């Protein structure tokens, strides 16, 4: 067993974990942060994306012990200080960027990582960045629209619609 301490959504969090405990499991089962979803558990789907030291990672493919000492942000840490939806979350609502909602935490975390590095991405750059996030409901168009809107850009009509 290994003692781990990390900062999760700005608060200190610690626990005792097995070597094999995944970061996704630690967040969900030890800390009760079940917003980080586990879809495929094989690092394909991206529902479990969180930020570790500012970088988007798949929490199902990182050990909790590897995140010892790290700053972790999950979907629970994304809302504004007053509890209202942040600009990306609000854009997902405004543009119907979710249906069942299962992939949404990972989508929002990937979108936030993209916009941090590339504040005004093109439609193609958004689609490329979401390569590792799978949504089985929306056909992606409304997710892409939401992310473009969150970046302050006009939302185009998309050819494939």
């Amino acid at each position, binding site marked *: 067993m290994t003692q781990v301490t990390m900062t999760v959504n700005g608060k200190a969090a610690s626990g005792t974990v097995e070597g094999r405990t995944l970061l996704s499991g630690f967040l969900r089962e030890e800390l009760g942060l079940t917003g980080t979803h586990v879809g495929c558990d094989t690092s394909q789907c991206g529902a479990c994306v969180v930020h570790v030291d500012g*970088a*988007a*990672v798949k929490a199902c*493919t990182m*050990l909790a012990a*590897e995140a010892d000492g790290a700053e972790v942000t999950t979907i629970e840490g994304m809302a504004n200080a007053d509890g209202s939806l942040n600009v990306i979350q609000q854009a997902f609502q405004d543009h119907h960027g979710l249906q069942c909602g299962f992939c949404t935490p990972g989508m929002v975390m990937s979108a936030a990582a993209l916009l941090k590095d590339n504040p005004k991405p093109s439609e193609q750059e958004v689609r490329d960045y979401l*390569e*590792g996030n799978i949504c089985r409901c929306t056909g992606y168009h409304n997710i892409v629209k939401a992310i473009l809107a969150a970046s302050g850009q006009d939302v185009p009509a998309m050819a494939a619609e």
Partner: protein
Amino acid sequence: MYNFGFEKPGTVADAVAALGAEDAQALGGGQTLIPTLKQRLASPTTLVSLTGIAEMRGVCTGDDGALCVGGATTHATVAAEAGAYPALAATAAHIGDPAVRNRGTIGGSLANNDPSACYPAAALASGATIVTNTREIAADDYFQGMFTTALDEGEIITEVRFPVPEAAHYEKFVQPASRFALVGVFVAKYADGVRVAITGASNDGVFRWSEAEAALSSNFSADALDGLSLPSDDMISDLHGTAAYRAHLCGVMTKRAVAQAS
């Protein structure tokens, strides 16, 4: 996953010591190893993370002009910082997806030597030197078949040195589900000749296409490859593509790589 112990040493020496334990296994970014452990295809007693070793991270230019990449450097870092070797940076920028690139490391990829991975093609085409805690291994001696390398038990890739070519390009035909290379071709033109390395195609893992190298060394243009083809005998054949299809793709991807080399 079966359970295991976990260690994260801060120096190469401490990592080597930790890997001396029976059935200890090095852990890079874990983007292949963790899924492998989940399938219970491996059962190490201890994982020794190499990502806490500061001296194994980062990109720099050596005295001889070669681009030096620390073994624990992530694909995202290579994509962002290997500007001195643009084709290598572009290769790193298209491995997996963004979240995978933030964890996966060059040392992990080369140590695993997946027959469809991108970095083995880059290293072999560049005539890179694989530097370990004990020795330097030429890429031509390093890759020894699918998932097989010259590394000894417990040996750690600390750095990879890439001679920077005059022109190069990596062209990948993506297998649409896994995003691994169905066939990927890395072409690199040096003053003393052209090197062509192909991943994804062969049952023996990454290999050099010497016939194409000879043709391109005398005439570096896609036309120089007209009429050349590879035998499909040892090519991978699976539901994503037959051996003949892969052999055909090798020619097409090589031409495209030459046409785009810069």
